[in-house]
């Protein structure tokens, strides 16, 4: 500091020294880049989106305040209610199956198996490959004429004609849910595996000596100790499934006859393709209450985890 003091005016030294000692001021300075981007491109648009939902803004035309008219309009719109229904079916079915299969895969990977690290690495591939590109692969696998699944089933003599995967409403729903599950399993499995690995083996040994069977060990050791991490993982999973856009947009664009439209895809279709930005924003805003419910769930999940593991309660 002495060297600086000789070459700079006194008040500047004081300022630098003060800055270096004032944690609040310095903290503000360090927060500046992140805060600027997040406030400008995340917080502001979040508010703007809610505001847009209350206006009739269209592409190329400034809107005016129309109160809850968009919502009243949506309330009468059966396609909107269909998309809400689809979103719930999609989220519930995909999350439950993802959780069950993910937990199973995690338990399998937690065994002593050869090439464990390698297997874990390739299992994660569906998660890291861009969703849009793997959805394209699924689109091809689900093709109505040349689907490889239909073809294998026909070759095996189990089927007489090709399955119309994406052409029938319920088939299409099941198909997109299957693709979502495929993409989500690795995330659930690998994060739950991390949780499993923190459970001490001595607990299982003690339980075995006490005569506990496999199911009892799972029910009374694995599951309770894993609950906190399950809560967080499933909150993330539900949140991202609920707001999914990519898979649907690539494979069905909401069709056939709106059977796979989720709230996110309907919002995109109305706002960007149809040009009704206000209405699209209203649909997007309608997702917020559900997201808040999921976040609150996650918050209480996290709280529970801290006292369970004897951590700081902050």
């Amino acid at each position, binding site marked *: 500091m002495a060297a600086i003091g000789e070459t700079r005016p006194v008040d500047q030294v004081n300022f630098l020294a003060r800055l270096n000692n004032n944690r609040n001021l310095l903290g503000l300075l360090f927060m500046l*880049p992140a805060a600027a981007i997040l406030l400008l491109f995340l917080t502001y648009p979040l508010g703007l989106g809610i505001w847009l939902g209350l206006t009739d803004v269209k592409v190329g035309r400034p809107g005016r305040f129309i109160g809850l008219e968009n919502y009243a309009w949506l309330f009468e719109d059966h396609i909107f209610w269909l998309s809400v229904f689809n979103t719930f079916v999609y989220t519930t079915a995909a999350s439950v199956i993802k959780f069950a299969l993910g937990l199973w895969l995690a338990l*399998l990977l937690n065994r002593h198996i050869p090439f464990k690290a390698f297997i874990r690495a390739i299992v*994660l591939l569906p998660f890291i490959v861009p969703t*849009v590109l793997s959805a394209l692969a699924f689109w091809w696998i689900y093709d109505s004429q040349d689907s490889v699944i239909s073809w294998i089933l026909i070759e095996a003599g189990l089927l007489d004609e090709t399955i119309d995967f994406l052409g029938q409403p319920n088939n299409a729903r099941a198909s997109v849910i299957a693709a979502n599950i495929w993409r989500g399993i690795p995330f659930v499995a690998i994060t739950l595996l991390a949780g499993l690995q*923190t459970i001490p083996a001595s607990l*299982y040994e003690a339980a075995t000596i006490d005569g506990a069977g496999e199911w009892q060990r799972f029910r009374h050791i694995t599951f309770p100790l894993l609950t906190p991490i399950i809560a967080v993982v499933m909150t993330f999973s539900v949140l991202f499934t609920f707001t999914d*856009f990519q898979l649907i947009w690539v494979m069905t664009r909401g069709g056939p006859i709106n059977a796979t439209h989720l709230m996110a895809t309907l919002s995109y279709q109305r706002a960007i393709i149809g040009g009704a*930005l206000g209405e699209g924003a209203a649909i997007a805003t309608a997702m917020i209450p559900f997201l808040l419910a999921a976040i609150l769930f996650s918050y209480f999940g996290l709280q529970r985890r801290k006292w369970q593991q004897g951590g700081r309660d902050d």
Partner: protein
Amino acid sequence: MTDLLARPPAADEGGMGYLESLPRKVVVVYIPLAIFIFVLLFPFYWMTVTSFKTNEELHAYKGLQALWIYEPTLENIRFLLFDTEYPRWLWNTMLVTVVSTFLSIFCAVCAAYAIERLRYKGSRTVGMLIFLAYLVPPSILFIPLAIMVFALGIFDSNWALILTYPTILIPFCTWLLMGYFRTIPYELEECALIDGATRLQILVKIVLPLSVPGLISAGIFAFTLSWNEFIYALTFISSAENKTVPVGAITELITFDVYNWGGLMAGAMLGSLPVAILYSFFVEHYVSSMTGAVKE
């Protein structure tokens, strides 16, 4: 925190494995595991096989031969590289991804250090808010952001993506790095403070070198997240030469009369390769960032 997964569970090695007979283990562990791996990898196999097939072979389903390629061709790759703007999309994706990743890491390092170590008034609350920001999905932000991007005059340019991707990346990276900085002993910092180092010097010379694994984890995860991004790129970019790979593949490679499946699958494969290769080098870092974000 980070080496949890890298370290094999030592107790398991000697543990109770001997209680299980091999035939039982085959049925209970290996067969289900093999099915999982088959289902999880099959789309990639099919994608790759399709992209090397000729168009005639693609539709000729006879016997078991469709599962393999009998007349491999590079025609689909050639089509992508020379007859479409695919190379341009790859370049755009790379540029946007790299710039927004570095921008996000810079912002996240500063923010995480301030929250975790400067502990200014209200830092706890800010930390919580950052976590909440991570949970805000792009599908509720793209409409207002589209209007903002248009008003700022950066619609249909790489800047639109470079400036909006960090909203997804910064919360995640900050959250991850906060966990990382927490593991660095305070004593190191106190010594440096006594020796007269400024906070900036401490951050650059002590904290950052010690958290290189954390920085790599955050960087890899941010890279794959922004390579993956779709809805912003789809909404903010309109001209073919500014598109990213996911958007270009969906909007330009699909012609609605005849599906060029070979070309489409080649596009999907080539677009997946960069992340897959990067991932293969940093599997441990990637896994630790993914699990770290959930566990912190």
